[in-house]
């Protein structure tokens, strides 16, 4: 009887335990932070997002605002594909290729018609969206996670635009093109596995 009581008491005490969150992405704040950090902690995402803003600023109006509007909309489509579990081949290679191509566009001062630029950016946005979307079902709070990563993506675009506005000055234009070259080289590094 004494053993039964001891055992019962132990079981009851187990019932009192609460969940332990060790810096875990729990709740609204956790969902937001994990979403916000998802694009920032992946260098392949960071450089590609900055390249979108950079290219937009380089191309001037209306691309400066059209590309950052197109990107999240198409990224959401890619994300939905990821959420629904529809596989896309070579997602990581696509993300690396986005850095190579978008960086090269800036480095070589390529100025295609606006619709061509929008299509190129949109095509790569699907890969980035898919990568974020596959993480969404595991998020503590999906809405907060989505808010976090879309906001983070937008701020990375803004960083690229801010840097890209240097093209007004001749030396700034060189700096922006050099930045595009660095992004493109980093993309090669991601694709080959060096980075």
């Amino acid at each position, binding site marked *: 009887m004494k053993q039964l009581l001891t055992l019962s008491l132990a079981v009851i005490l187990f019932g009192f335990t609460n969940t332990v969150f060790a810096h875990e992405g729990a709740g*609204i704040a956790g969902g937001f932070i994990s979403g916000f950090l998802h694009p920032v902690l992946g260098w392949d995402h960071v450089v590609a997002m900055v390249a979108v803003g950079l290219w937009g600023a380089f191309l001037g109006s209306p691309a400066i605002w059209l590309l950052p509007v197109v990107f999240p*909309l198409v990224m959401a489509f890619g994300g939905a594909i990821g959420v629904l579990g529809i596989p896309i081949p070579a997602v990581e290679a696509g993300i690396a290729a986005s850095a190579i191509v978008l960086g090269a566009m800036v480095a070589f001062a390529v100025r295609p018609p606006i619709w061509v630029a929008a299509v190129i950016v949109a095509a790569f946005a699907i890969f980035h969206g898919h990568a974020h979307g596959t993480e969404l079902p595991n998020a503590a709070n999906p*809405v907060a996670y989505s808010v976090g990563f*879309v906001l983070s993506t937008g701020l990375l675009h803004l960083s690229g635009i801010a840097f890209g506005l240097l093209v007004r000055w001749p030396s700034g234009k060189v700096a922006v093109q050099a930045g595009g070259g660095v992004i493109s080289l980093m993309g090669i590094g991601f694709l080959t596995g060096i980075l």
Partner: protein
Amino acid sequence: MKFWCKAFYPGFFLLIPEIVFAHAPLEGLGSFYNGLLHPLFIPAHLLLLLALGLFIGQKGFDNNQSSLAIFAIGVFSGLILAGFSFAVEMENYLLAGALILGILVALELHLSSKWVSLLAFSGGLFLGMDSTQETLFGKDKVAALLGTGVGLYFLQLYPIALADYFNKKAWQKIGIRVIGSWITAISFLVLALAVSTDI
């Protein structure tokens, strides 16, 4: 001893449950203030409020002043339905509303005042209906619902003021449209998740 053991265990297990808070209100604040803060704890509410506010502000508040009153009517109609527990799970409706309004903001579509009013009423109604206070009864429930109504109304003013104020220069208009595209992306993704979990 057996009798005491049987009486003892349920007593212990009754100690284990914790209070369940729908949308985690703050303890000690009182029903009205918890209701007031209720929309701040629900990302889907904030998303729809932001989308609707930007939409109304983008169209120019001077031309759509009545939409704010119509929004309030929608909110309190929804809260009355929620008070009588007629409301159902509305999060997907809120996200669908945010999606539509986000697209309208991103595309900067010009709609007549009637459409703006209709969307303001629908948005308010959905927000009110999703603000049920199932754990409260009597005066506490009424106070919480009233607080939610006041909170939703005041929170709606901020994005309207933002979009109305930043509606003069080209870059300001672009900024509002970019936020609209973000709202669309967020809503679309979470709706896709809801669809995927239903499948």
